[in-house]
Each structure stands twice: as structure tokens, then as C-alpha cells.
């Protein structure tokens, strides 16, 4: 049973065809690199899967169940978690507050219900430990390094039993050392059976952690290959259009 199945997904903005007839299948425990030039449709595809846009045409299935998302919250309920490019963190809150933002653990009986800070800090700490990240739950995100912030954003996706994690350029804005840290986080997620789509401009990242690579050009899928049977040169050619289809 595939974690995610896209059949003939299209997205048109008026006359602009951002996505045309895209098919995609992703298994549990598989990391897929989604590549393409600016405007190729990567972000649009991610936004369709994450529930930001309704597709103009086509079908999305999560574990064989057809789904229609009109809001990101609905996608999350079906097990689609997103790590946004800018990480979507609140600097003024603690790591644990960010992990649980929008789904806080509470105690007490309605209508008097209060936040269970201790339980949230403990669970967040466990998640950071699983990710082998030295991030302290009660520290403010403001004081954290890029790698730690990434760990907070990724830990958030592990709160629920996510079926699919979308990562939009997770290594775009961090230092070289932290890139290695983040790639390690992605590997751990995949090894734990998580289906992952990694959107990236960085060829080395995709080749380091992904099992497969999909290339989009002008809204169409032009390649879908196991990482072992392709090369950075071929993928570059596919992205730029030097190689037409593979």
C-alpha cells in the first residue's frame, strides 16, 4: 500500500498551467527528492499535497484512500506533515511550545483546562532525543542554531503518526555543518518508516539521502528514477531541459 499516490494532478491558475498531469507514487520508508528549476511546479505540487491548493484535476490518495484537502489542517489530520522553508516557528516561544503549537497537551476538565507544560516538555525532549538532536525543550527558539530550529520543525511532524512528511528546502538557509545534521535527521525519519518528499535545489543533499528523484519541468514530470541509476549530471540536464525526458 503506497503512502501517497497522485494520479493526473493538474493545477491551473487561469491560463497558467503550473502542473500538468503529474503521476507520483511513494512508499512508506521511501525518501523522494523533488527537483526542478524555479517555476517548474515544485512548490505548487507540495502545496496541493499539503492542502494549501485544491488541484484543478486529478486524484490524491493517502494509503489508498482518496482525499480532498481545502485547508492545511485537513491534510494534517490525514497524516500529511509539512516542514516549511522558513520553518514556521515562533521565536518568542520555547522549543516545546513550538512543537505543540496548535495541538497543546492540556489537563483538567472543561471548561477549566490548562496547559500541561511538563508533559509537553517531556514529549518534546523524547522527540529531540529520537532525532539525536541536542535541543532543549524549554529553550526559546530565538536562541537556537539553524540545526536546532530544524529539529524543532521536524519534531513537530512526529507528534502524530504522520504518513508523509513534506520538506521544503530544509537546507536552504543554514550553515554547512548544520546541513549534515539535518540530512542525518532526514535519514532517521526515513529509516523509521516515514515516507518523505524532499524539495531541494541542492543536488548533493538529494543524492545523499533520497532513494528516488523526480524532476519537474514546466509543470510536467520529466523523470522518475531510482537515485542509483542516475547521476547529478543527468538530473541537471533534466532540470535545465538539456536532456528532454528520462
Amino acid at each position: 500500500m503506497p503512502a501517497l499516490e497522485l494520479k493526473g494532478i493538474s493545477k491551473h491558475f487561469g491560463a497558467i498551467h503550473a502542473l500538468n498531469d503529474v503521476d507520483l507514487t511513494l512508499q512508506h520508508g521511501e525518501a523522494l527528492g523533488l527537483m526542478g528549476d524555479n517555476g517548474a511546479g515544485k512548490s505548487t505540487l507540495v502545496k496541493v499535497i499539503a492542502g494549501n491548493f485544491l488541484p484543478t484535476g486529478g486524484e490524491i490518495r493517502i494509503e489508498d484512500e482518496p482525499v480532498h484537502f481545502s485547508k492545511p489542517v485537513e491534510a494534517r489530520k490525514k497524516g500529511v506533515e509539512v516542514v516549511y522553508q522558513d520553518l514556521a516557528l515562533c521565536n518568542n516561544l520555547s522549543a516545546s511550545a513550538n512543537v505543540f503549537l496548535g495541538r497543546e497537551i492540556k489537563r483538567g476538565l472543561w471548561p477549566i483546562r490548562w496547559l500541561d507544560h511538563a508533559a509537553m516538555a517531556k514529549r518534546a525532549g523524547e522527540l529531540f532525543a529520537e532525532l539525536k538532536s541536542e535541543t532543549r525543550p524549554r529553550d526559546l527558539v530565538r536562541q537556537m542554531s539553524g540545526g536546532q530550529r530544524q529539529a524543532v520543525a521536524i519534531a513537530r511532524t512526529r507528534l502524530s503518526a504522520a504518513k508523509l512528511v513534506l520538506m521544503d528546502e530544509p537546507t536552504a538557509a543554514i550553515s554547512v555543518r548544520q546541513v549534515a545534521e539535518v540530512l542525518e535527521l532526514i535519514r532517521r525519519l526515513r529509516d523509521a518508516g516515514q515516507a518523505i518528499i524532499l524539495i531541494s535545489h541542492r543536488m548533493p543533499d538529494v543524492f545523499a539521502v533520497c532513494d528516488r528523484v523526480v524532476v519537474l519541468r514546466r509543470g510536467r514530470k520529466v523523470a522518475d528514477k531510482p537515485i542509483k541509476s542516475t547521476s547529478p549530471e543527468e538530473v541537471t540536464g533534466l532540470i535545465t531541459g538539456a536532456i528532454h525526458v528520462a
Partner: protein
Amino acid sequence: MSSELVPPTAHTSIESVLDVQQHTALQRLLSAQSLWVTVALIIICVVMGVWQPASFATSENFYNITRNFSFIGIMALGMTAVIATGGIDLSVGSTMGLTAVACGLTLEAGYPWWAAVAVGLAAGGVVGLINGIIIAYVGLSPFVTTLGMLSIARSCAVVLSGNRMLYNFGPGGAVFKTLGAGAINIGPSFQASYPLVFLCVLTAILALVYKFSGWGRHVLAIGGNEQAALLTGVPVKRVKAQVYVVSGLAAAFAAILDVGWSGSAINALGASYELLAISAAVIGGANLMGGEASAYGALVGAALIYVIRNALLMAGIDSNWQGTFVGLFLISAVYLGKVRGAKRE
């Protein structure tokens, strides 16, 4: 699926640092603006008490100052919630005027005190709700929306009151007046006015809300990063609308106490109080960029403003200088906040 992850072995130190905070409780206390404002407040009180024991350090003066700043303090409490989301509410002064008139008319018509309180709170709540809907759902800027409401609410207050003072309170008047003018004894010689008691209780409640409620956390999250709050499923629009309702209710409650204390309702009540309420919140550590809120800060900020005014008066300085001193403290508070912010980055 998470259970399939291998537990960490190399990083045994992680568990041991789980409870460690980069900022210890003491460090956080020392970096809180409200602490330093409290220190300033105590210093001014001690200096004045030693210098003018016969006029400043009297139970009567304590009673008057604490009652006077309670009205502004209660408004400032509501203002902290708005400011925490990165908004501003300029309409609270006019909301007071409208509430005063609404209460006055209800009492003059012979309804009981609780009906007047309910009508007054409803007036403030509706003003806040209109602000909130326009800001959160229509998407206009808080500054412009509440500036417009400042004008609208005051104008409605003038029209409704027939531009006259309302003081012929009916049978409900006696209890209504007690709400603002009553006091409880603390110790043998000191008295705390009911407005001060209400302020302290509301401050405690709001402090608990910020610390322990999901709503308080969402208010701070919206101020910190509205986009992040939205993406993580925080009901951003609803919470943004709610903070203006809270602010409107706080202003209405302050007006109810003020009318009760003065025994009459005038449509000009609260004119320019919005600036005092914002000043009190900001002096107490609220950050106009959003993401920070302190209920205690609102209380102590309001106290500082009124103690400075009182101290200048007692020192025999021309009362026209009061604004200069309050303004200097406000600007210093913002500067202090900026310095603290720079240190944390």
C-alpha cells in the same frame, strides 16, 4: 512509527539536560522589564515617603493613587492582549465614554445595578467585536480600524447622552456607585478601593491565562509569527478578533468602576485614556511588535505613571510638566526593551 526509532545511546546527556533552561528562573526575572519598573516604583515611593511623609506617605494618598491608576490598569490589561498579537487598540478611551453613557441611561431608566453593568459590558464587548471582525476577518490595519472606532464610539456616546451629564441614577444607583467607590480595610489604617481589588484579581487571572491557557499561548504565537501560527492550525482569525473583545470589555469594566466612583456618567469619560493605557502596557514590558505580554506589567506600568504624577504634584512642580515626565519614562521603557531585545538575539 516513532517507536521504531532507535533510542539514543551516544547522546546519554540529552535526558540530563531536558529540564535545564538556558534562562534560569532568576535570569528570566532579571530580564523582565516589569521587575525594573517595580524597582523604579519602589525607589520613587521611598524617596517621596522620606521627603514628604506628611502628604505622600499617608493612607489617604495611598487610597487615592491606587484607585486612580486602577482604571488605567484595567484598560491596560486588555491592551496587553491586543499588543501581544502585534495589534493596537486606540478606541478604548471612547469605549469608556460609550459605556459610561450606556450605564447612565440604564440606571436613569430605573433598571437595577446589574442590568447597568451588563449593558455597559455589552457596549464595550460590541465595540471590541466590531473592531475584531474588521481587523481579523476583513483584514484592515488595527491602527486605522481602532482610530475610526475612537471617533465613532465617542460620537455615539455624545448622541446617546443628548450631550448632557447623567446622574439621576434610579434605585440601582446605590449599589452601582459602591462598585467604584467602595473600599475594604487592609490593616488598621489602610484602605484598598474596590477598583484596586478588581485590578489585582483581574491581573492574577490574566497572568494565569497567559501562562497556562491554550488561548494565551496562541495570542503570543500570533504576535511571534502569525504565518507560523496559521500553518500549525492556530485559529488565528478567531483569536485576533477575541483580543479586541477582551480589550473592549476591559475598557467597559474600567468605565463602570469610574462612573460608580464619580457618581455621574459623562460622554467625555476616558478621552485620551487610550494613550495612558498603551503607555502603561508598554512601560510594563509589552512589545508593540507583538509576542510579549505581561499582566503584572500592565498593573505596575499604570502604577508608575500615577505615582510619577502624584510625586511631581507633591514636589510642587507645575502640573503641566507631568506629561513630559510620563513621556520620558515611556520612551526610556521602549529603549530598555530594545536593549534587552538586542541582548537576546
